[in-house]
């Protein structure tokens, strides 16, 4: 592999790489605002300027400048090298690049930082970006200089409503155009643009439009400062109190890699952020996926029920065991869920196998809108995983289960999952004795005879197989809410009540037992 030198460190590069790309791949950070690995090069923030030594035997390209001499109290003539933006400059073999080691680069970066903060409002205390803001990080790292301009700053529009999800603050904006390029290049919907120049520059909507495509929250995510803020997250939490776990988005079968940010003090999830995985979602997530974290807390079933009224866990387990053991032989069915992890579905399958249940059905959310960027029409995160668990045995769908119940072939159903493709089948489900492990209120929880509260994906570690057949692990963020427990744990408790023993007791054991053959492992960023 060809190499070049960055701050005297030898770095590999691929032909065509820019300096910042090669450095990024090698894990060396060159400070930048406007450059994003997934977007085109704009080279407008000037933060990534580097000094490049002239080729051997050639003189350096020097610029004549005036430098203020404090002793003389006047400007004196001086020369300095012409610096290059690392995001735009392609690497050449043996190139000698100076970033942190060049005094000229340090000076330039401090000056850029001073310019960017020249008209910046004193907003950190009320800004949602505070704590993860590049302006804050880079000021301390590269500038550290006090304000020299004491005039009133240039005022620009604040809290501009960009659409249903995003609010824009032009005063905080450094006009890096990441959001503009994202809409244009990734979503192919050029709804944002830039107007004016210099300190009057700001981001504007296309006339007559709102920022209302399906990836609007990504504009907030790529914004390196607090100019774009998400309405969903505004003033909800301060990021330094949040902790993150590596999760997998539950919104559709794509299985985008995400971070679930939660506050450990009140055990509440506050947002989803994309996690880089070049094989799955690259750097992005869609709006519905970003907002999917809300289901962790919304419409949850948190207590056991019998016949619609809340009861104790013990009473519900006894009632469920009674219903299962008194069922007519051969008339019990399993209902698996394409929304639940391999662990949950496997535990239920294993319980069904020990009870001699033959017929297996699979349900999930109805199909929805898809696109060729990220979103799949299948809105279930683990359909592929359940099919792999079943192997050769194809499960029946919800319509088949409804028909079997109506036809008297099935009288008792042990099911996991809160959603079915069509709520109309709920009336059929209600005719059978349905023991349901549900996370959310819905047709299943309404139709069930016994409800056991299952915890959501954020409350237990789980494995999900996406539509490309990649097996990915979503980590546990918060502790199970209310009286909920992971569905696989309910399966163990039910088995105990029925005098059976499942061959696993701990999360690790059920994870190992439920490993499916045939799924490739999704790379974890």
């Amino acid at each position, binding site marked *: 592999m060809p190499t070049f030198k960055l701050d005297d460190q030898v770095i590999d590069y691929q032909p065509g790489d820019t300096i910042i790309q090669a450095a990024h791949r090698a894990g060396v950070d060159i400070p930048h605002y406007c450059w994003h690995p997934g977007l085109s090069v704009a080279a407008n923030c000037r933060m990534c300027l580097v000094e490049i030594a002239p080729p051997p035997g050639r003189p350096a390209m020097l610029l004549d400048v005036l430098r203020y001499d404090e002793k003389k109290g006047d400007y004196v003539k001086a020369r300095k090298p012409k610096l290059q933006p690392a995001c735009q400059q392609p690497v050449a073999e043996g190139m000698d690049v100076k970033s942190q080691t060049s005094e000229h680069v340090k000076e330039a970066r401090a000056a850029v930082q001073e310019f960017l903060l020249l008209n910046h409002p004193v907003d*950190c205390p009320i800004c949602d970006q505070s704590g993860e803001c590049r302006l804050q990080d880079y000021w*301390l790292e590269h500038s550290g200089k*006090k304000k020299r301009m004491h005039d009133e700053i240039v005022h620009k529009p604040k809290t501009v409503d960009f659409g249903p999800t995003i609010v824009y603050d032009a005063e905080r904006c450094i006009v890096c155009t990441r959001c503009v390029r994202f809409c244009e290049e990734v979503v192919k919907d050029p709804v944002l643009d830039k107007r004016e120049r210099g300190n009057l520059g700001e981001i504007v909507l296309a006339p007559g439009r709102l920022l209302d495509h399906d990836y609007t929250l990504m504009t907030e995510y790529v914004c390196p400062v607090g100019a774009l803020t998400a309405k969903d997250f505004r003033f909800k939490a301060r990021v330094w109190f949040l902790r993150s776990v590596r999760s997998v988005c539950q919104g559709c079968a794509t299985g985008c890699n995400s971070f679930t940010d939660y506050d450990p003090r009140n055990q509440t999830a506050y947002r989803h952020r994309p996690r880089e995985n070049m094989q799955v979602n690259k750097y992005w997530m869609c709006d519905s996926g970003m907002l999917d974290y809300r289901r962790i807390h919304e419409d949850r079933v948190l207590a056991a029920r019998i016949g619609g009224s809340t009861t104790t866990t013990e009473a519900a387990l006894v009632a469920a065991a009674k219903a299962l053991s008194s069922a007519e032989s051969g008339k019990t069915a399993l209902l698996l869920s394409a929304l639940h992890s391999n662990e949950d579905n496997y535990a239920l399958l294993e319980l069904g196998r020990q009870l001699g249940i033959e017929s297996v059905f699979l349900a999930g959310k109805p199909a929805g809108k898809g696109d060729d960027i990220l979103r799949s029409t299948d809105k279930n995160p683990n359909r592929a995983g359940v099919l792999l668990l079943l192997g050769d045995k194809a499960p029946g769908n919800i319509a088949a289960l409804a028909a079997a119940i109506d036809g008297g072939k099935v009288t008792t159903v042990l099911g996991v999952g809160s959603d079915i493709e069509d709520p109309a089948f709920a009336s059929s489900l209600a005719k059978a004795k349905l023991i349901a492990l549900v996370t959310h209120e819905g047709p299943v929880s309404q139709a069930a005879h016994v409800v056991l509260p299952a915890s959501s994906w954020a409350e237990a570690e789980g494995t999900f197989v996406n539509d490309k057949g990649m097996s990915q692990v979503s980590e546990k963020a918060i502790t199970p809410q209310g009286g909920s427990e992971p569905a696989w744990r309910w399966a163990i408790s039910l088995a105990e009540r029925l005098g059976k023993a499942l061959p696993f007791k701990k999360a690790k054991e059920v994870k190992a037992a439920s490993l499916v053959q045939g799924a490739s492992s999704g790379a974890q960023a």
Partner: protein
Amino acid sequence: MEPLDVELDETEVELPTEPMLVNVGPSHPAMHGTVRCVMELSGETIHRVDVQVGYLHRGFEKMCERGTWSQVFPYVDRCNYVSPMLNNVGFSLACEKMLGIEVPERCQWYRMALGELARISDHLTCDGAMAMELGAFTPFLWMVKARDMIWDVMEEETGARLTHSFGRVGGMAMPPTDQFKEHTLAVVEQVLKIVDESEKLVLTNRIFLDRLEGVGKISAADAISLGWTGPCLRAAGVPYDVRRAHPYLKYSEVEFDVPVGTSSDCLDRFLIRFAEIKQSAHIVRQCIARLPDSGPVDVDDPRVVMPPKSEVYTTIEATIQHFKLVMEGLKIPAGEVYSYTEGGNGELGFYLVSDGSGTPFRVRIRPPCFLITGGLEKVVTGQMVADVVPCFGSLNMIGGECDR
């Protein structure tokens, strides 16, 4: 009047005695703070003693390791709470050693002046309390009166009489007040006068001298092997003083003597503190003479020092600086350091480990008292029960420092 120590013929009534276990403390008037001594007595003679210091346990080292570096100051205040300024300065110096920065000259003289005032208050407390525990209440009130004068200066400078939390990494919380020099010089003069009077009060009292002289001896070799430092070690004749042996701040530029004892008994440990008060007063006067009236107190480094509040509210740069220092804490480069200064009772050492983040990875404090208290057993073994009081008093155990 007849002498008190008449030879009594005790041989006729020889009482058989068996070793008796006596618990003194952890809550007992003879114990400074919460410490427990299990004594094995034969009559009134101490055969063995087991000193147990674990009764005050706040886990302060662990507490230090959960906040930012600056948030450690209130904790070190509460190590030796009689001279918290010395702890503050010691911790500041340890952090600055890791950062590789040196505070401006004005700050160095200021730290020294405040530190020596704290040392005077520490020694006054020790000697006063020691006299009080032996029944001399007047000298205690006398010396505490002088201590209160010093604490008046401290209050004026820092806003707090006892736990100042006044040190900062890279400077001090505030520059010296306008009256600092005048006030301090006046107080030092008063304090020295009170010390002279106190000396006259106790050193002409025969009962007092009898209870100290020749009591609680320890050899220099034993003191060194126990890890003793400070006045207790110097009373044993070893002239080790960190200020002289490894000068920090501006101690190499000031004149002072290191007093040493000759007989290494309780009286020596009592007297050496009076002698050191006079030396400290001498140092304070030199510091005041050389403390510049203007100039920066804090280092000029935005990564370490807080911006002025007026700028925080009006400029984005200072807001950012304030935010980063408060929310993430100042970052100290990864590494470890052992930094030591002369505390009130000896070598106060800080062994710090940083992982490069804003939170200390490890804060290990070497408090002089912990090691000195460890020597109590050696000092009182073979003495009479009543001698525990002066021995213990002369070691000046500070409960907060013995927190393990």
